[in-house]
């Protein structure tokens, strides 16, 4: 029974709770037990909030017994990325500089999750301040990919993706600045969505690059992602970049898509996001997905987005620039650790700040802060940061032109499947290339989804299909994603994750 509960989808859990087939406490307890059983190996969680999760579950059970009307996901547990401030629960962003920090307030998105009466199981591991594509840059040790514990789970949200793939949470939150939701989803065989920029409030999220950051849902199915998307998204006066106005019904789109008819939908294959730099097994699964879309009635065309080839370069100037400014707040004065320089009597605040940041930041964070400081410094500003902002304009124009001829665009999410831990740690540039297909969406603010496309033939590891849509048309991701998912699961005879190792102690 307990194993069964952890293997239900969020939609099934919600339905079962409403029908009182099982209780919210049973569901939460099953996940906490599963965490105790397998997370020692996977290390998806940095902190487990068992008591508060059970308290939330108990209140949901009481409300259900009293016949109260509850939000759709009430009683369905969730894991939260450690970049989101959670009142009373440690929040570290995977950084030593925030070790032991307990926020005095909730991020708006956490507020919404609590209002939805969802038990928060704990905080998930991530690359330090979301800088990375492997979760190896966490100060608290890497998360391991549930498909193969010697491999990376993607990043920065490798913890959230790994909770889903190891069945220690049915839903999780992520943030995506250049692919941190979508790439981990791709390499763990799960679903991840970066909504339109501004759809989910950034208030209370520790900022990496403010003009690129966007929080979104992580799940095992397209419908589950839609259900969580609906909880997370919505206008927030506390975030001046929060979207106002009409926003589409993503849950309805997921349900419609599951019927499998894509007649009237035009899908654009982005020429620049494929080809030689992509692993053969990734290309093969992608090509099959294209055939499948055609079979579902979609019209498939090729589109060209020539400026996408400059996206990676622009991103690695804009992101470090914004990050160097955002991370200046870690000054050892108001929160986080404080380290005094060795051998200095009565040091100044500046000396303490520099000593703290030496110890508190990891190598990748230092690298990017210094890169950003360089790109913003006088004499280089126009050549680097200024040029990168122009490339951003060109990328937006490419998207606009592509969406003139296609309703959605598709590509592989990531050029490779999960690589072995340690493989790219000493080669930052090859790590950055992991995000080559996901970055354009962040630069333009458009929404994107990754969903499982199958296993690569050469290594048996998950491959992700990326779907991109125009800003504020997040519903199209769900329509097309659900149709692809329905066709693939029927071909496979079940979900892709059914083929993942069980990780059960008895089976090892």
């Amino acid at each position: 029974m307990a194993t069964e509960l952890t293997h239900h989808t969020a939609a099934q859990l919600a339905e079962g709770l409403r029908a009182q087939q099982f209780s919210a406490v049973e569901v939460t307890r099953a996940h906490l037990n599963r965490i105790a059983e397998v997370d020692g190996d996977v290390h998806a969680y940095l902190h487990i909030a068992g008591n508060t999760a059970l308290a939330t579950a108990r209140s949901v059970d009481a409300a259900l017994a009293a016949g109260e009307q509850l939000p759709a996901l009430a009683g369905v547990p969730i894991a939260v990325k450690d970049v989101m401030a959670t009142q009373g629960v440690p929040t570290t962003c995977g950084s030593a500089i925030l070790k032991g920090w307990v926020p005095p307030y909730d991020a708006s998105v956490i507020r919404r999750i609590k209002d939805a009466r969802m038990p928060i199981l704990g905080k998930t591991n991530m690359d330090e301040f979301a800088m990375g594509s492997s979760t190896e840059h966490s100060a608290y040790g890497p998360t391991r990919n549930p498909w193969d514990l010697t491999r990376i789970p993607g990043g920065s949200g490798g913890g959230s993706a790994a909770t889903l793939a190891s069945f220690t949470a049915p839903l999780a939150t992520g943030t995506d600045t250049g692919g941190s939701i979508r790439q981990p989803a791709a390499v763990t065989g799960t679903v991840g969505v970066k909504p339109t920029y501004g759809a989910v409030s950034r208030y209370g999220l520790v900022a990496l690059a403010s003009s690129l950051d966007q929080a979104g849902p992580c799940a095992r199915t397209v419908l589950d992602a839609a259900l969580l998307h609906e909880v997370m998204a919505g206008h927030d006066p506390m975030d001046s970049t929060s979207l106002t106005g009409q926003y589409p019904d993503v849950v309805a789109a997921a349900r419609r898509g599951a019927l499998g008819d894509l007649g009237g939908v035009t899908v654009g294959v982005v020429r620049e996001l494929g080809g030689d730099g992509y692993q053969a097994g990734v290309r093969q699964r992608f090509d099959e997905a294209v055939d499948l879309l055609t079979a579902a009635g979609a019209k498939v065309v090729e589109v060209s987005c020539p400026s996408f080839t400059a996206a990676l370069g622009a991103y690695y100037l804009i992101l470090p620039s914004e990050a160097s400014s955002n991370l200046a707040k870690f000054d050892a004065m108001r929160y986080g650790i404080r380290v005094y320089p060795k051998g200095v009597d009565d040091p100044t605040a500046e000396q303490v700040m520099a000593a703290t940041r030496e110890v508190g930041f990891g190598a990748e964070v230092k690298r990017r802060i210094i890169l950003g400081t360089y790109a913003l410094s006088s004499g280089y500003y126009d050549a680097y940061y200024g040029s990168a902002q122009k490339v951003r304009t060109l990328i937006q124009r490419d998207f606009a032109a592509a969406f003139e001829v296609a309703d959605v665009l598709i590509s592989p999410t990531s050029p490779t499947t999960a690589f072995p831990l340690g493989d790219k740690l000493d080669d930052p540039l090859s790590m950055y290339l992991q995000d080559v297909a996901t970055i354009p969406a962040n630069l333009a603010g458009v929404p994107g989804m990754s969903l499982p496309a199958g296993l690569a033939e050469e290594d048996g590891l998950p491959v992700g299909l990326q779907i991109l849509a125009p800003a504020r048309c997040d519903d199209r991701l769900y329509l097309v994603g659900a149709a692809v998912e329905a066709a693939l699961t029927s071909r496979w005879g079940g979900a892709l994750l059914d083929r993942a190792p069980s990780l059960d102690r008895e089976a090892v």
Partner: protein
Amino acid sequence: MSAISREEVSHLAMLARIDLTPDELDRMAGQLDVILDAVATVREVAGDDVPATSHPMPLTNVTRPDEVRPSLTPEQALSGAPESEQQRFRVPRILEED
């Protein structure tokens, strides 16, 4: 040609208020050089006639009503501080002695 020297990295680290060990300086100068080389292409892509974009969604003058609302208590605001005293953040001295 090397885009960035070890001395330059050392200066940038000072500006960014991060102490770096000699080892870190050596390693980072080399790595930043590779990265800068790879991103330098952005300089050739866009002409002078292309406007810069700083933000994905066009927004101007977003405000909310200037109303008093509940906020953190002094205890909450100070709860994460490395040191505090008399409801204030206690910080090291901010001026040089001489």
